[in-house]
């Protein structure tokens, strides 16, 4: 699997596909019957772009993100990451895929409580091939001044920014964020989005961000709306708004 080259040439990026899904379907078998989380999703996501996924609870956006991140497998259909079909991979390979190419940001930060901010980042840099230094990653998200603090000593916004630093320190090809501002107030949320934006700008990381919050869509290159397991709408933002000016 090739590692994407860094580039800040957006016009070039738009032509290179990061993810492509064909007829992606996910059915959960429950006692109450089959639940269709995804009903045939076909989409292409492009390198270096920021994509925001909107949609109500249960619309399938999280399932979609999990499949992109190699955490879940579709019931039917294919997912291509660059030229490789993720759906063909076994668990060990998916682990390597996540390790080399994917950065995750969780709604509840999921920092390791026993490690300081710097160590949380180092946790990932230690197993990466060409990482940023932990200090640089933390600097990138504006956390350069609190590197030796434990998660319990940081606010929610600070924790999430450390989480972003941790996710991007390995220079992932893709950054997947599941409701990164869901647990934060609007001001802190904005600071986290700014960090994500900065990473996208400086490292050219393909970013996929799930949110309930339609206000965030304005910072995206592309906005994908999910409804009932399908893509209801795809919009391309001609004019992106800087994250710092977002309000909700």
């Amino acid at each position, binding site marked *: 699997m090739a590692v994407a080259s860094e580039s800040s040439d957006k016009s070039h990026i738009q032509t290179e596909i990061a993810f492509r899904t064909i007829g992606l379907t996910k059915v959960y078998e429950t006692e109450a019957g089959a639940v269709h989380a995804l009903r045939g999703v076909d989409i292409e996501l492009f390198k270096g772009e920021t994509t925001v996924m909107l949609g109500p609870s249960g619309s399938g956006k*999280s399932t979609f993100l999990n499949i992109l991140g190699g*955490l879940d497998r579709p019931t039917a259909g294919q997912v291509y990451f660059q030229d490789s079909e993720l759906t063909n991979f076994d668990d060990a390979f998916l*682990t390597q895929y996540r390790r*080399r190419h994917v950065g995750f940001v969780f709604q509840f930060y*999921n920092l390791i*409580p026993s*490690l300081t901010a710097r160590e949380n980042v180092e946790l990932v840099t230690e197993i990466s091939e060409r990482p940023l230094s932990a200090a640089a990653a933390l600097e990138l998200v504006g956390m350069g001044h609190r590197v030796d603090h434990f998660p*319990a000593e940081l606010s929610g916004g600070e924790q999430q920014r450390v989480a972003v630093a941790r996710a991007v320190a390995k220079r992932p090809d893709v950054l997947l964020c599941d409701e990164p501002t869901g647990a934060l107030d609007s001001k802190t949320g904005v600071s986290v989005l700014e960090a994500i934006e900065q990473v996208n700008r400086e490292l050219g990381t393909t970013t996929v961000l799930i949110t309930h919050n339609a206000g965030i869509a304005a910072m995206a290159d592309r906005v994908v709306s999910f409804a009932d397991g399908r893509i209801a709408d795809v919009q391309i933002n001609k004019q992106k708004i800087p994250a710092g000016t977002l309000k909700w």
Partner: protein
Amino acid sequence: MVNRLKSLNRKLVRDLWHIRGQVLAIAFVIGCGVATVVLSLGTLNSLQETRDAYYERYHFADIFAHMKRAPRSLLGDLSKISGVRRVEGRIVHGVIIDIDGMVEPARAQAVSLPQTTVSNLNGIVIRVGRLPVSGSTDEIVVHEAFAEAHNFTPGDAFWANMNGRRRMLRIVGIALSPEHIYVLGPGDLVPDNRRFGIFWMNHSALEAIYDLKGGFNDVSLTLSRDGRVQEVIAEVDRLIDPYGGIGAIGREDQLSYAFLKSEMDQQETMAKVFPPIFLAVAAFLLNLVIARLVETERQQIGLLKAFGYSDFEVGAHYFKFVAVITAIGIIIGWAGGAWLGRGMTEMYAELFRFPFLYYLIEPKVFIYGAVVSIFAASLGTFTAVRRIVKLAPAVAMVPPPPTTYKVNALERTGFGRTMSQPARMIVRHIIRWPMRSALTVIGISFSGALLVVTLFFLNALDEMTEIFYFDRERQDIVITLTDIHSDTAVKEATYLPSVMRAEGMRHVPVRLTSGTRSERTVIAGIDPENNLSRLLDINHKKIDVPEQGLMVSDKLADMLGATLGDMVRIDVLEGRRPIVTVPITKISRQYVGIGAYMTRSALNKLLKEGPVISSIYLQVDSAREAELFTALKKVPALVGLMIKRVSLESFYTTVREYMDTMIIVYIGFASVIAIGVIYNAARISLSERGRELASLRVLGFTRQEVAFILAGELAVLTWLALPLSGFFGYHLGSLMVDMFDTELFRLPFIIYPSTYGYAALVVLVAAAGSAWVVVRRVSNLDLVAVLKTRE
């Protein structure tokens, strides 16, 4: 009220089912504690009850005395001693017997049956057949153990060498006696029922054989309520003195009684030492589990209280949780203890010969086992349950504050900087809960210690056997003569077939007194050039018998409260009964029995006798042993014969069989502790860190890398526990040495390095196994859920 409790009970059942692995692991640890209580106290109780009933029903005597020959009139004098209730004279004599199919001669003790039919002292219990008919001279009743070893039934017969004449003895009955519950031949360490037995025959027949017409050579006495053992013994000694009495003994010195008592003391020791170990571990594990449960169910507890459940009801709910686990443990313990007890009793039935051995554990033993484990469980979970009761609903509903960590001292060192982040996580998690980590380490180390102390017994026995049979007793055969003989007999013995070397010894029963303490023993008179039975110093090296004064064994010195240079009074209990005072000039190390030694010439001089001996030690050519046995069967002056090889073999078969069983049981016990502690520690760690570990998986850590964090913590704790196992094992072993220090034998305190190795190996295997079961679950971590759930 009833309905809400119903739903709480349903929750209880489901919660218990949810952590069934942990429930079972803890229940087994409790079970082991209860089982050891039931086993030890149950066996002790059974032995005690059986023994007491047996002694009472068959009139086991209180005092025993042996002499050369005494007239029947002496019995009247003895019965007049104040405090004496009944007196019975009899004839007891050592006999060499020749059994078809046995190359070597066997030994036996012939005991006369009373002439009256009224219930007599040390009454025998006929198991099969009958008593000899009145007037018969060749009918005998044999002890059941001896009969079983030879498959004897009434009608069988064997040859005996009695007072220089070979006689055919016919078995008419098989019996047991309270005097011979533990049948041990002279010089043996364990019973050898093939080569030593007891038989009874008519008094008149033995009178005739041993020229004791109208007389006897052995007396048994019982005391009335106000009879004092020591006073009566002194009076008996005075009266039997003119008749060659060799000093009366009380029950404490009666071999069968002493061995049975020693075994019972050991059971009592076990009941004191082992259950607390298990119950302490169980208390800790329960605390661990309940504390974790409170942590995970914090919001539920708040909710229940908010719904209107009282503090008491909520507390009681969690207490029930503990109660159910404890109850399962108690049931396992009762069943396991009863089962092991049955096995133990069967083993005892081989060793101790009772006409009835009811294995009846009294209800109080079961209740005691249950009560102590309930106490331990309550103690272990008291603080956790109290925390539940005290938790205010509003506080409980808010998620607990995040765990705070600190950089620890270890990491500030150079070593700390080289640590990977996962290693850091392991170290910080251990240090964050120092008490829990310490108790886990201690818990695991108990398991190792239990193994060290169990295997220590093997080491000690090996060492004891090595010292006793090879360093000390280097002869092949010891023959005991009927009476003293001129030491020219030693030279004659060298003419016997296969004999390569012969050495004479003089043994004489004495009472040694130092200050207010007094002990009965035997002085062995040894020639300085003797080499077949050696005396050893504290380092197990040969030491010579002192030219002057008396050498005593270390235990005897201890019992007398005497040391080098102290004067001891020797009251010889035989012959002219001289009394002398001599200094202790040497002390020898001796693990079996007690003893005193001087040169044979000095002993002969003390006894005012010529150069005489009472036993001969032989070194023989084992290839021609059979010829020697054939010859010995015909030697008239023989009363005893000890063949070392045979004695050693029977020691190994008996003791090893017993030890092997014990070792399997204790390896099981130790594994239960190790598994219980490690499995629970691992499960709780997984439960606490599941989210953390799943996050790492999402971040691209492999299963192995994540498993490393979980298993690494357990590995660190287990490794820390290993040296501690050795430390606890060493001290527990030393405690055992003190507890097993009796007049009969002592254990050398030696723990082979391999013992620590084996103990560590078992702990590591148990640890690895139980950790594996948990670490496997890393594969099942829900990676998707972790993205959505809050801690």
